[in-house]
């Protein structure tokens, strides 16, 4: 009988284990080896990655298993706490729904048919396709998009080595307009706010208590507890609004509010003239620009009574210089949102709150301290980890989004991030040239970028789509190759700089061995892929231990010390404010050659004449029966990243559409009703949440729900995918535009 040989051979063949198909995991061992494997309880300090805030954390490990994630008790910035998402990391690590082996698509795109393959097969497949595209269209026809992260440098290294200029981060969908404003005003974006010591905080949509960054929550809460006033401009009553004074501003008019503030401060002499004179340039043009931006005018624009605007401005200015207007985070609301962020920064300059307690400061990485003789001794900068590298080929074409080109509108787009919304446009329209391959690392364009269906349509024109992630994301589902990355609890990453008022570097390190043995860390994936592609010499480090040792060497901090503590900060250094002792001290932002902060930006003026100083754009407001559609973050989820994580999904599996009770009554909609939301040609089903907590002309939902990949079983089909309804429009600074869509609602 055939089977007798087939199975018997495997059972009674040579050796003690079974060698057949996937068998052979179990091997005979003696008890001695087993005893050596006993592992006791330990704590491993590392860095959280459940969102991009990168808090320090401590993993409790028992018998090789993470049983709990806590804050790092030695880190005063978080007071040893992690948020709900941080704790829930354990359930991501041990989730059976994670992807476990590389996969190659076997059916049509979008049918979800894959086979599992070895890493070598996956690399070969990608390398062959990349070569084909390179030969047919040039290396620039391959675009790279990733969520910004210390390790996405390895991913970008592939682009650099093949000579594609088209690398993008997710930031255009989130904080980019702020980045542009910082770069144009200060010459660099590494600027932060000292919330904890502020006596008055105004935020334009920044939702500290739902878009959580632990140390910032701690800072703002400290300020509020010390009696600071918190004013929250938001069309929706967020948790942050609940902790302060809610100013339900009309959508897309925030710039009017800030111009009126400036108008009042100038008229009533409520600004810091010395500071403006010594540290800034172009103030006269700002005076001119806000001359007619009176509180009366702003009342008409924003819907906020002029008395309120005046009251807020006077009280705020009275706390000079220890008060700040927060520059915002997820703010790609309008095409020219960067101008609103610029105006906010200018108000801060008028407050003279630069480098003083309760104001803005240059993040104090070791490099920033070097010119200050009394501070330089506290920390030495870290170095690079790559080792020797051949010269990278010079891209023969410019970027598809024109980012960073002086004298053109592209100057507004931060080159490190790019206008990621241009990728699907270039795929579909082949302008300025066609994109044929798209490599995606830990980013999910289908949900994170606007106009989901257009993104999917663009996928269909690609010769190659590769996604590397921990889950079968909505983008992975459409990909040709899916690469399973291990989680942040199972890998090393380059040194993470989290400096604030004192330098701070952090380590992300494996707290347990790989749970699923055939997943890999990003550094290894791209190093091996690089080798397969013949560009291995761009990765001349043996492993991450070597990489990290190289990085740490110039800083004088031992790798073992980092492994033991998880982070390093100079122990005896006090928070350093450049103007802390002397308000006239030279305190230039670190990358600004002239030492002046640009109220008027020559760079912008040169690129877009007339825009060197913020100019108000009057955007349309929703008409009868229409609502402005806005979205936001919630404390238990991160962007589009955590909705399938077991414990977090359990806490919040779905979202609903917030609609004001008066507006809902007019439409005959009751709380909990099924509704259809329409925006142009797109429709989405959802459930209404009828509430007082939103403007009558606005509707809102939390972002990241309504997932379309059946591979995300818990999140699949639950709730509203906001981005299905928003057209893909690219803003002036490369941002996606999130809050210019008007929707109609009907009951079903």
């Amino acid at each position, binding site marked *: 009988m055939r089977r007798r040989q087939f199975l018997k051979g495997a059972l009674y063949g040579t050796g003690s284990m079974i060698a057949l198909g996937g068998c052979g995991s179990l091997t005979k061992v003696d008890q001695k080896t087993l005893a050596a494997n006993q592992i006791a309880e330990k704590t491993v300090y590392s860095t959280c990655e459940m969102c991009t805030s990168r808090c320090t954390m401590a993993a409790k490990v028992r018998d090789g298993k993470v*049983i*709990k*994630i*806590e*804050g790092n008790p030695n880190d005063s910035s978080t*007071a*040893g*706490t*992690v*948020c*709900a998402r*941080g*704790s*829930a990391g*354990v359930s991501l690590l041990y989730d059976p729904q994670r992807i476990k082996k590389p996969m190659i698509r076997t059916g049509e795109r979008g049918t979800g048919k894959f086979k599992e393959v070895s890493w070598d097969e996956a690399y070969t497949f990608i390398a062959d396709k990349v070569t084909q595209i390179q030969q047919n269209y040039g290396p620039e026809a391959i675009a790279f998009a990733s969520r910004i992260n210390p390790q996405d440098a390895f991913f970008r290294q592939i682009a650099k080595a093949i000579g594609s200029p088209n690398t993008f981060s997710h930031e255009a969908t989130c904080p980019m307009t702020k980045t542009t404003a910082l770069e144009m005003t200060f010459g660099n974006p590494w600027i932060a706010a000292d919330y904890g010591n502020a006596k008055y905080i105004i935020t334009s949509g920044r939702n500290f*208590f*739902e878009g*959580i960054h*632990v140390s910032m*929550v*701690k800072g703002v*809460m400290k300020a509020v*507890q010390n009696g600071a006033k918190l004013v929250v401009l938001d069309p929706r*009553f967020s*948790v942050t609004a*609940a*902790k302060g004074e*809610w100013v*339900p501003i009309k959508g897309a008019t925030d710039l009017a509010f800030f111009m009126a503030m400036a108008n009042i401060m100038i008229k009533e002499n409520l600004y810091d003239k010395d500071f403006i004179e010594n540290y800034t340039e172009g103030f006269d043009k700002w005076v001119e620009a806000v001359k007619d931006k009176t509180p009366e005018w702003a009342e008409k624009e924003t819907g906020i009574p002029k008395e309120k605007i005046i009251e807020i401005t006077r009280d705020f200015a009275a706390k000079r210089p220890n008060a700040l207007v927060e520059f915002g985070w997820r703010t790609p609301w309008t095409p020219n949102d960067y101008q609103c962020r610029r105006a906010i920064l200018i108000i801060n300059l008028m407050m003279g709150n630069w480098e003083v307690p309760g104001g803005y400061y240059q993040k104090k990485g070791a490099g920033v301290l070097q010119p200050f003789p009394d501070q330089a001794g506290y920390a030495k900068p870290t170095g690079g980890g790559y080792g020797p590298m051949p010269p990278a080929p010079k891209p023969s074409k410019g970027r598809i989004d024109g980012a960073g080109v002086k004298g053109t509108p592209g100057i507004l787009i931060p080159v490190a991030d790019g206008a990621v919304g241009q990728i699907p446009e270039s795929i579909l329209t082949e302008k300025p040239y066609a994109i044929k391959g798209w490599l995606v690392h830990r980013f999910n364009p289908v949900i994170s970028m606007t106009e989901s269906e257009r993104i999917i349509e663009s996928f269909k024109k690609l010769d190659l789509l590769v996604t590397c992630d921990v889950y079968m994301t909505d983008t992975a589902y459409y990909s040709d190759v899916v690469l399973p990355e291990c989680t942040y609890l199972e890998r090393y990453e380059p040194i993470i700089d989290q400096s604030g008022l004192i330098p701070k570097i952090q380590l992300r390190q494996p707290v347990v061995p790989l749970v699923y043995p055939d997943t890999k860390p990003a550094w290894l994936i791209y190093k091996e892929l690089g080798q397969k592609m013949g560009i291995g010499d761009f990765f001349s480090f043996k492993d991450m231990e070597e990489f990290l040792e190289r990085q740490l060497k110039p800083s004088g901090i031992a790798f073992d010390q980092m492994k033991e503590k998880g982070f390093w900060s100079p122990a005896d250094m006090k928070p350093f404010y450049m103007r802390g002792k002397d308000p006239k001290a030279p305190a230039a932002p670190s990358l600004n050659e002239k030492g002046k902060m640009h109220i008027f930006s020559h760079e912008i003026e040169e690129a877009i004449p007339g825009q060197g100083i913020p100019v108000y754009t009057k955007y349309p407001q929703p008409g009868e029966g229409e609502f402005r559609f806005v979205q936001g973050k919630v*404390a*238990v989820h991160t962007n589009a990243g955590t909705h399938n994580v*077991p*414990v977090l999904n*359990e*806490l919040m599996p779905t979202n609903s559409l917030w609609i*004001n*009770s*008066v507006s809902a009554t007019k439409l005959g909609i009751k709380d909990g009703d099924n509704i259809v939301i329409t925006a142009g040609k797109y429709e989405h089903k959802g459930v209404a949440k009828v*509430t*007082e*907590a*939103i*403007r*009558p002309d606005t509707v809102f939902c939390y972002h990241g729900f309504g997932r379309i990949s059946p591979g995300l079983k818990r999140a699949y089909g639950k709730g509203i995918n906001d981005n299905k309804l928003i057209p893909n429009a690219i803003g002036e600074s490369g941002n996606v535009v999130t809050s210019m869509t008007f929707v109609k609602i009907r009951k079903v």
Partner: protein
Amino acid sequence: MAKQYAMIVQVAKCIGCQACTVACKFQNEVPDGQYRTKTPAIGPKGTYPNLSLFFEKEACQMCKNAPCVKVCPTRASYKNEDGVVLVDVDKCVGCKYCMTACPYDARFTNAKTGAVDKCSFCYEIRVGNGQKPACVSTCVGGALEFGNINDSNSDAAKLLAKYKAQVRKPEFGTIPNVYYIYEGVK
């Protein structure tokens, strides 16, 4: 003096982030879909645009006069020497009398152990080692405090001395040891 452990919730500082909820789950191996504590929203109350919204952490109130202890036929529910109400899993027969008796709906049947479960103030697992409970240690808003309120030097006692505190459903005469401070709530 004997110890009396208590938890203090400063409602104004709670942001409803559920870090406590999740930390508790992992610390105490609370099964899928079950919770010893949660922090639901109270509100928004009022009419647009004059609204209020706050969050109130819910868990066992650690009653001095605990109805759950009184009705337990097997003495599985008991109060220990430090004023903490606990459940002895081995003695619990799952009769659910305590669940009916508790005015705060703090108890549930643990799907894994089959015994009744509830907040333990992390007594054995953390407080015994000199740590604060898991929820208190990870509170992102900084709303939670814990300690022996019979020791006037404890952080918990200091908070009670400084602010007016309330307990839930005082009319039941349960004398809870979880205190809520509403100072600063809008």
